[in-house]
């Protein structure tokens, strides 16, 4: 717990992104397994203890500290976890503190009624900053300015690998990530994840700066509509089916119709929409589906979902991401013609010869389901993240606005 607490403490005060990465990297290099893996899970939001609640903490403090003194202190400090961690009676650093994994293991197997006793036992054996880290850990309040991406960047720097490699593995790994650390430190092979249904990081586009357009060769680019739904990844292989949001959240529970139709083996990139009789419904119809944990038969019938396909990442076990866009598109069309999947349509490519022509098309596109245009280089491989150059999004209305401003 000591190292973890020191890490949390330094992250709280570290203003710079690079500094945070260095602190994390140093921690991952120094802390043992499985502690560092649990810390990684806690920092990336992958650890929660539903049996531990902030109210229990407050109750424990109330049993030990005079009410007036607690109130005056809380008033001064302003944060419950910090107040309790500082005010907790006892020696500053008792012997035999629990390790992070002791805490995690015990909390996973404890029932709700056992939690306060466990907490009191640990708090008595920890120093103030460790108590703070413990309370923040179990109440899920580790707001130390570390995004999952930042933690992965630190892992990449630990193993001297590209962060894209970490992203690639990430959704197939489980805390405490011992296999990941072993690989990063050269003590083990790259983790053999069960990748049949994992999320593959999406390729994202940069907004088009129209001044750049004159420097771009229209013949190098393909254009397609940018639909006003939500960008998803549909993964289906060996009977495993998953629907992921752009950030890798599994949203399949709200779209059983999409999963049911995915009776094929492919990883597809597309736009999720509600489509009625070939008409794309307004975005809020899709939102109504999104917000449900479970969907009723009536909801399925009245708000049927469909995917407009943009790209194919895998066909069966074959990784197509290294191929240029044009070849992937050919594979997608070919696969689509053979498979004829239900609840899916190809998002068409738009023919154009000059930017003006495309601009006019974009201006004329009044359908509410169209958000704008996507421009993709014909030779672009499918890369994780938002690389500069290969893909642009050209949202509707931006040009008009610029014209007015000038």
């Amino acid at each position, binding site marked *: 717990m000591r190292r973890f607490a020191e890490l949390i403490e*330094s992250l709280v*005060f570290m203003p710079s992104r690079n500094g945070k990465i*260095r602190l994390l990297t140093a921690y991952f290099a120094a802390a043992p397994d499985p502690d560092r893996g649990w810390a990684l899970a806690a920092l990336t939001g992958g650890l929660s203890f539903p049996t531990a609640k902030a109210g229990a903490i407050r109750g424990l403090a109330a049993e030990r500290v*005079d009410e007036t*003194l607690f109130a*005056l*202190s809380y008033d001064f400090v302003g944060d419950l976890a*910090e107040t309790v961690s*500082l*005010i907790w009676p006892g020696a500053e650093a008792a012997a035999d503190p629990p390790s992070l994994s002791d805490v995690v293991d015990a909390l996973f197997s404890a029932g709700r009624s056992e939690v306060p006793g466990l907490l009191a036992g640990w708090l008595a054996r920890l120093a103030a900053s460790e108590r703070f880290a413990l309370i923040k850990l179990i109440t899920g309040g580790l707001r130390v300015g570390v995004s999952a991406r930042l933690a992965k960047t630190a892992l990449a720097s630990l193993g001297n690998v590209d962060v894209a490699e970490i992203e690639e593995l990430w959704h197939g790994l489980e805390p405490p990530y011992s296999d990941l650390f072993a690989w990063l430190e050269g003590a083990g092979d790259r983790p053999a994840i069960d990748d049949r249904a994992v999320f593959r990081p999406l390729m994202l586009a940069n907004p088009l700066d129209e001044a750049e357009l004159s420097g771009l060769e229209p013949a190098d680019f393909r254009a397609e509509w940018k639909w006003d739904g939500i960008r998803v990844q549909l993964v289906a292989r060996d009977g495993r089916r998953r629907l992921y949001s752009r950030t890798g959240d599994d949203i399949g529970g709200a779209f059983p119709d999409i999963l049911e139709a995915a009776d094929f083996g492919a990883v597809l990139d597309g736009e999720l929409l509600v489509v009625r009789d070939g008409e794309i419904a307004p975005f809020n119809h899709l939102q109504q589906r999104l917000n449900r944990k479970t969907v009723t038969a009536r909801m399925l019938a009245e708000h049927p979902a469909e995917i407009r396909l943009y790209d194919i990442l895998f066909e069966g076990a074959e990784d197509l991401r290294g191929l240029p866009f044009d070849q992937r598109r050919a594979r997608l069309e070919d696969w689509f013609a053979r498979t004829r999947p239900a609840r899916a349509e190809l998002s068409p490519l738009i023919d154009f010869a000059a930017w003006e022509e495309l601009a006019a098309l974009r201006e004329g596109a009044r359908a509410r389901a169209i958000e704008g245009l996507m421009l993709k280089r014909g030779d672009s491989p499918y890369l994780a993240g938002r690389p500069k150059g290969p893909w642009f999004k050209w949202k509707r209305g931006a040009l008009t606005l610029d014209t007015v401003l000038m």
Partner: protein
Amino acid sequence: MPAAPRPESWIRVVPEGLYVAPGGFFVDPVRPVERAVVTHGHADHARPDNRHVLATPETLAIMRARYGEAAGSALQPMSFDEPLTIGGVTVRLVPAGHVLGSAQVVLEYRGSRVVVSGDYKRGADPTCRPFEPVACDVFVTEATFGLPVFRNPAPEHEIGRLLSSLALFPERSHLVGVYALGKCQRVIALLRQAGYAAPLYLHGALQALCDLYETQGVALGALRPVAGASKAELAGKIVLAPPSAVADRWSRRMPDPVIAAASGWMRVRQRARQRGVELPLIISDHADWDELTATIEEVDAPEIWVTHGREEALVHHATLRGRRARALALVGFEEDEGA
């Protein structure tokens, strides 16, 4: 033998400060007076322009260094445990463990004993003599850190954190905000104790008091002025500066500095973050909550007067423990410079 007089009958708060009536003098007056007994050299206790000043030789030296002629027209040094009687009041100075020369003022009048402890701490400090508890009828205590959340780690631990940060960021200079009197020299002495022997770089405002400590026999090792040092020279070095200089453009001469601060206030994260501190070092020259409450038990005074900080909690605590306790309405002691 007549009963000892009630303390309020001979020592009381007036606008100038704490007045000892039979002796005709004040302890740490906040306005210029004829006769002052001064506990220590911090500016909220030792003010200029009093006429007669009684204090330890170290405190007088500090006052002379800070105020020159304005330190007082008659400066009377008084060593620890050499009592003096003034108008029937016996005055004795006893170490307070706060900064060099800091003293508690022990006052006895017709069998009644009041200890005005000034600022004090109980933890070890290589730069000054440790606090000595004196049993008394009234203990006047500070309460700068008078809340039970202020419980400080060992200063050696905090110095260890500074040194680990230096190891982790060897290309950055570590700029530590310290008060000029006491904290600066204590941090230096703690670094030396931890085995850090490299030169330390000082903001110009810290030099004079460091020199004074040296002449009073506190060895501080190699000290160099920041002025004139190149950016390259300051990389990976520890630089000490007053908190005000850390915050302003002066600090831009440092290569990508790690902003640290050594203060008891660093215990509370929000306070540290407000000051833009990246490395808070909890090193206090004031008693923390445990020291305050333990000291009250130790001197075992039936009556406790609390001043200088968060009086309410300490008064509440002492009352719970069966002592008569009240807040002394002294003005001018907010946010001590030596915290």
